[in-house]
């Protein structure tokens, strides 16, 4: 691990401005992704700002009936919150399907959104990877791509975003609240949070340098049946090959987002109009522009079948 200087943040605005002042800064929250990558020298920050003492660890009701989840709320606490379990079940389910009990006790809401890809070549520092070393090439194209993207990718990168939680956040139309180094704040819809890889797969989100996530907000509950179904190589403690997060209403309408297929949680609102026609119609629309490799072509039928199972479960 490369050496770094370390400070504890005092306020969110001060953390953001300190991050902008020091080049090569990273915030550290749970540390469960960042330290893993620092040990491998995939991440080499020169300065760490520990945000754990910022009072961003509560879940507060909003006047519009929604919830404001502090950036530092731990994944375990979010999944176990009575309001989340009752009104936003898809979020609780997605969190509980991810990582392990120990990791969820540390992992935070913001850190989970910002965790980096599990592409095997991103992790292998001996191999070219445009995301890790811009311009070096993409080893996954023509390489081992079983776990990688089938939609939204580019010729520069076919990585997937590994978060389960983010899929539920997308289904729920969450918004990301931030503070920027100049002290101003903003709210970004999760739909606009992740950037397409294009020619610059190293740039993953809409966040500016130094911008700190302070909270994630949820709109008021929409009711319906909440389902999160994750398909993986082991029954527990494994990343998704694909996953489906859905909210289905009594009248058959609903929302669907996919994990494990793209650089971001994959949702196309127009596809949801096909829900009454069934899983095939929805999948055809969702994955209309799919581009698969020999290794990951299995994800196409897997999405359709998993969605079919989800719809059966939701309508039971």
């Amino acid at each position: 691990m490369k050496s770094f200087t370390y400070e504890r943040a005092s306020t969110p605005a001060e953390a953001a401005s300190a991050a902008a002042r020091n080049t090569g800064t990273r915030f550290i929250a749970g540390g469960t992704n960042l330290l893993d990558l620092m040990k491998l020298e995939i991440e080499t920050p020169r300065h760490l700002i520990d945000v754990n003492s910022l009072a961003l660890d509560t879940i507060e009701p909003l006047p519009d009936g929604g919830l404001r989840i502090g950036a530092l709320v731990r994944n375990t606490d979010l999944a176990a919150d009575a309001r989340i379990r009752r009104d936003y079940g898809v979020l609780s389910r997605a969190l509980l399907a991810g990582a392990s009990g120990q990791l969820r006790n540390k992992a935070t809401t913001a850190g989970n959104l910002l965790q980096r890809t599990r592409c095997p070549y991103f992790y292998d520092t001996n191999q070219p990877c445009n995301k890790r070393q811009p311009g070096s090439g993409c080893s996954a194209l023509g390489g081992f791509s079983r776990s990688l993207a089938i939609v939204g990718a580019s010729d520069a990168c076919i990585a997937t975003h590994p978060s389960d939680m983010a899929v539920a956040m997308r289904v729920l139309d969450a918004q990301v609240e931030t503070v920027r180094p100049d002290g101003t704040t903003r709210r970004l819809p999760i739909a606009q949070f992740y950037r397409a890889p294009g020619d610059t797969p190293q740039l993953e989100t809409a966040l500016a340098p130094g911008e700190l996530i302070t909270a994630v907000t949820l709109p008021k509950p929409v009711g319906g049946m909440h389902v999160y179904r994750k398909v993986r190589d082991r029954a527990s403690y494994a990343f998704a090959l694909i996953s489906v997060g859905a909210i289905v209403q009594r009248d058959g309408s609903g929302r669907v987002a996919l994990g494990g297929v793209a650089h971001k949680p994959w949702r196309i609102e127009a596809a949801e109009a096909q829900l009454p026609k069934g899983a095939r119609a929805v999948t055809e629309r969702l994955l209309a522009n799919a581009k698969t490799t020999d290794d990951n072509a299995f994800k196409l039928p897997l999405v359709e079948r998993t969605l079919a199972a989800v719809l059966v479960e939701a309508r039971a």
Partner: protein
Amino acid sequence: MHFPSDLAATRRDLLIGTAAAVATTSSSSRLAAQAPADIGPVIAPVSFEVNGAQREFSLDARTTLLDALREHLHLNGTKKGCDHGQCGACTVLVDGRRINSCLTLAVMHQGQRVTTIEGLGTPDNLHPMQAAFVKHDGFQCGYCTPGQICSAVGVLDEIKAGVPSHVSADLTATPEGSEAEIRERMSGNICRCGAYSNIVDAITDVSGRKA
């Protein structure tokens, strides 16, 4: 491609670089040429409670909680398995919650309370979970055992606190301590010997007694 002699030279450069790094940066090392010059080790103070005793440290900021426990306090009950959060051998309790001590920095625990396997019980006065692992033969080689036991103690507290799991049928119901629940909740602790069925028996035994 590294040849043995190459590798030796690189390691020597690095060692020299490290020794000299407090005063200078190791600009002569081949690795440093690719990246901005490294900064030298940064020594940071931190204090926290370990197994009931207040401990003061002055350590390289890169030191994980796991290395602080093992290398600085010589509490080597906590094991280093994968060092990447994948195996659970390093599980300890911090402020009563189980975490992987390999994926957190010691300096991030100022003022907190750490409990390791050595703090749960002693050979003469075993914690009920330690006793149950002995009774049910919940191990073979024993390497993962401290992590398994700390994790199991955390699991029972989480069930008691009403934290649901991936296998809980009803999210809003009070979770139970069934075998399926224990297996799912313990999935972050890998046992290479495959002593799982006895581990589950041990935890179920303690969980039944608690209820």
